[in-house]
């Protein structure tokens, strides 16, 4: 009898909970509906980690206040982003706005942009959009995306001047000097280089960022690779770079946990003085200083170039994370409104003022850039400049994460540098053949 009473009570309480749940839900829906009809809709923005800064989310809040359109940011871990995005796009379930790396060629081969994104050529911001950025987000003369990333600077090696001075180290001018500096730091109990491999993308820059140096050392390499007249595996310089990077990993210069380290922790680890170097955008120094809790100032950090192959050519990276409106979006007009909002002069200035990693954006809206003295001095110190390989070589950027995975296999001695390069060539061939590229 007692059990029966307990059972009846439980059934009653569960029924009440279900009814209450339904009632609450329908209440929310009603409220939401009323709000929607009064103010607007919700747009979804899907992007990889680190592509949407807090300052942009702040702009999203202001946008909602002004227009009533809510912005739902869906941030995906970097190592899973592209797979997830393409799965969504390929299955016809894309978000209203999706993030993607610009690059006029890759937009077609990687993102099928003509099918997956809307033509934005008639949008007001296109008039003052930087020409190079416009070119890199356009296909057949139609603008498909808005680059919302500081493409005016790139990733460089950031180093802790204090730690270098304490260990009598100079800025390395060659790879052997860099290795020697790493060894000195390691001997002094400092982990030389914060190399986050956990995200799957950061370590690939060692290989791709020195495009200008490759061009200097191997004449016509860009044309030859793009026209399938040579391969990565056939070119000795590529092998040498992989061997050099692998050497750094094997000698312990990346620390013990580099395979699980993540880029988002870079500021913390450099700010703590536990690591002496890493690779980041010029503007990230402010983040490191903030994480150091007063231990360092911006003057305590400087830059030099990726040192592999004794690199002395400044890397330029005109492409960057951009925003595209999904062709199947039911909220296309609201999404266009959002892009128009974030590319206004005030919004751009707000990004520059509030996000240390953004010193400028590729729009001529009358904003004031925020290049630090150190950055300007560094950028002006180079005569030679070259475009990074992920922007200049066909079918390279789309396999960025796969290269990263193969490089990890190299670090753990599962693959040789030759096999990594062959993997790159094979994937390029697969994509080129699938795309019907006549050169393949």
């Amino acid at each position, binding site marked *: 009898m007692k059990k029966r009473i307990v059972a009846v009570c439980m059934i009653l309480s569960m029924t009440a909970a279900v009814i209450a749940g339904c009632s609450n839900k329908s209440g929310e829906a009603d409220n939401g509906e009323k709000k929607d009809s009064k103010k607007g809709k919700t747009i979804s923005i899907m992007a990889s980690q680190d592509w949407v800064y807090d300052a942009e989310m702040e702009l999203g809040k202001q946008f909602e206040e002004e227009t009533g359109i809510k912005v739902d940011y869906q941030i995906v871990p970097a*190592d*899973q982003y*592209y*797979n*997830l*995005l*393409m*799965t969504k796009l*390929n299955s016809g379930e894309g978000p209203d706005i999706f993030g993607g790396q610009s690059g006029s060629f890759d937009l077609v*081969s990687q993102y*099928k942009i003509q099918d997956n994104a809307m033509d934005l050529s008639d949008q007001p911001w296109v008039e003052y959009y930087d020409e190079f950025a416009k070119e890199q987000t356009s296909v057949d003369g139609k603008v498909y995306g808005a680059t919302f990333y500081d493409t005016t600077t790139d990733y460089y090696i950031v180093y802790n001047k204090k730690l270098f001075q304490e260990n009598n180290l100079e800025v390395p001018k060659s790879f052997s000097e860099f290795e020697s500096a790493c060894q000195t730091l390691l001997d002094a109990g400092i982990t030389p280089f914060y190399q986050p491999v*956990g995200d*799957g993308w950061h370590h690939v820059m060692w290989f791709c960022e020195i495009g200008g140096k490759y061009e200097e050392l191997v004449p016509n390499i860009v044309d030859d690779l793009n026209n399938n007249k040579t391969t990565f595996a056939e070119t000795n310089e590529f092998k040498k770079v992989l061997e050099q990077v692998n050497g750094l990993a094997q000698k312990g210069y990346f620390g*013990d*946990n580099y*395979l*699980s380290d993540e880029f988002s922790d870079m500021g913390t680890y450099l700010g703590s003085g536990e690591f002496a170097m890493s690779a980041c955008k010029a503007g990230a120094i402010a983040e490191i200083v903030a994480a150091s809790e007063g231990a360092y100032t911006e003057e305590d950090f400087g830059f030099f170039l990726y040192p592999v192959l004794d690199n002395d050519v400044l890397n330029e990276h005109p492409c960057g994370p951009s925003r595209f409106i999904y062709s199947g979006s039911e909220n296309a007009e609201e999404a266009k409104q959002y892009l128009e909002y974030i590319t206004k002069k005030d919004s751009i200035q707000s990004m520059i003022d509030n996000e240390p990693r953004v010193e400028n954006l590729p729009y001529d809206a009358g904003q004031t850039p925020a290049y630090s003295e150190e950055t300007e001095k560094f950028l002006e110190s180079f005569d030679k400049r070259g475009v990074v390989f992920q922007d200049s070589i066909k079918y390279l950027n*789309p396999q960025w994460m*796969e290269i990263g*995975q*193969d490089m*990890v*296999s*190299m*670090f*753990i001695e*599962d*693959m040789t540098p030759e096999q990594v390069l062959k993997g790159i060539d094979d994937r390029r061939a*697969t*994509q080129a053949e*699938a*795309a*019907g590229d006549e050169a393949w």
Partner: protein
Amino acid sequence: MKKSKLYPWYFALGAILLYTALCVVPGIIGIGYSFTDWSAYSKEVNFVGLDNFKKVFSADDNYLGYIKNTLLFTGVTTVAKTGLGLLLALALSRNVKAKNFHRGVMYMPSVLSVLIVGLVFTSILNPKTGFLNELLRGIGLESFTQKWLTDPAIAFGSVMGVDIWRGTGYIMTILIVGILAIPNVYYEAASIDGASGFQKFKSITFPMLKPTLAVTIVLNVLYGLKVFDLVYVLTNGGPGHKTEVMYTAVFKQFSQGLYAEGTTISSVMFVFMVIIGFFMIKILTKDEVVE
């Protein structure tokens, strides 16, 4: 035999039609596409014969390694989950104190979403800040700390360990039901004859539990062959390709727009599963008596 059937065959027609439309036809279409060059890069779909299959079984590609990983995962997790599940079921089908509480606790992990389990364990197994290494350091066992998910030697073991933790309770529950269904008179008779606990298990519990064990083993094997989500969340196939399994490879091929290669791997796995499932049921139910 036919006369003993209660219902005519056409009572199952609706279910058969639905199953055919939703499972069989897409499956056949999928197998058909694995003989083409279907991709996101071209609107044309051309017949390419066995090219995709050659690639899957080529020593130059990594797929053989992924097949090996998938089979290893299936074997280890099936044996471990079934073994541990059986031990727990035997322990918790007795009159132990608070047995319902223990059963609930053991079953709990299987209720959790794989995604949540993966995210929680990613945090627990972090080499620098994870709970497990912190605990080992805290009790003076620093030498036992590991890079659980990034050390190539143990990453796959960690993934399998998490799956065993998650799935054992489920197997235990099924086996408890099987054990409780065994009539008590057998045990009473055995006790009168002076049989020991082990003898009772060997001669009564195990033989009568075989059909249930067969079901759990087949379920585990099929789950193992299809594993994707846990590997994807914990390691995404890494470090390198050390923990890559067939369905993480399918996912990567599909998301790269190489649909035909993706469907080829799925077709290969489908054939594997049919063959393995068929033989396992045959073997495991060989001595089963239908009353």
